[in-house]
């Protein structure tokens, strides 16, 4: 029988690799009996979902490219444009 501490490690591992059938059955059984681990697993699922949606959400809008960086990049773009012509 797995301890809760082992179950949360397996819950994470299952997201990255496939586990043996027996292990998955034991986890299912454990979740039926243990509310906390089952809650943990659900929250991890949500975190994965949020991570997947992360790039669609721009944050910290006050964080911007510095003027000097902008000028440097603009110059590089201009050079590239002239080279292409």
């Amino acid at each position: 029988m797995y301890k809760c501490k082992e179950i949360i490690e397996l819950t994470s591992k299952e997201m990255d690799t496939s586990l043996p059938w027996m292990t998955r059955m034991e986890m299912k059984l454990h979740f039926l009996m243990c509310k906390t681990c089952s809650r943990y697993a659900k929250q991890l699922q949500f975190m994965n979902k949020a991570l997947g949606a992360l790039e669609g959400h721009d944050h910290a809008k006050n964080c911007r490219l510095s003027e000097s960086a902008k000028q440097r990049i603009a110059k590089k773009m201009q050079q590239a444009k002239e080279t292409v012509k």
Partner: protein
Amino acid sequence: MTQSNNESPENWLNDYGDILYRFALARVRSEATAEDLVQETLLAGFLAYDKFSGNSTVRTWLVGILKHKIIDHYRKHSREVTLLNDDETADDVLAYQFDQQGNWQVDLVEWGTPDKSMDDEQFWLAFNDCLTRLPKRMADLLLLRTVDGLATEECCALLGFESDNQLWVTLSRTRVKLRQCLETNWFSKE
């Protein structure tokens, strides 16, 4: 957002420079590196503009290029195998959550319907804040594996983990930390 109707490459720096910069900075945590990545992305986009199909927005397309540049960055700077450091063992977090026998000794806060949070801009600030608080290599690992979908073996090679098992253990600890932070920073406050 200052999006102009004219999507010509001259406007990209103004229209998307900051967005790309924030995206890169969240991943590499170095202003200079993030600036370089924005520059490489805009130049690569400019040179490949004839391949832009128009099936997505320019913004999405440029972010896609940036994601490749970020992975390239890790490939160029892949680490020698390194020992796990104290930050990464996260025993502090595990120790107070579990007793000696490995049973829970804390109650997890019920997150209700967390999907609702995904419509809330404040949630994404809290989420990003929690990612920033993770030790760098843990955040790198979680994002390369979960968001970029790199294979386990490649993550090991890029970040210097010595075995798949070490990587899985670290990923689990990363998720423990991130979950704990989200609970404290967001779900306990709602």
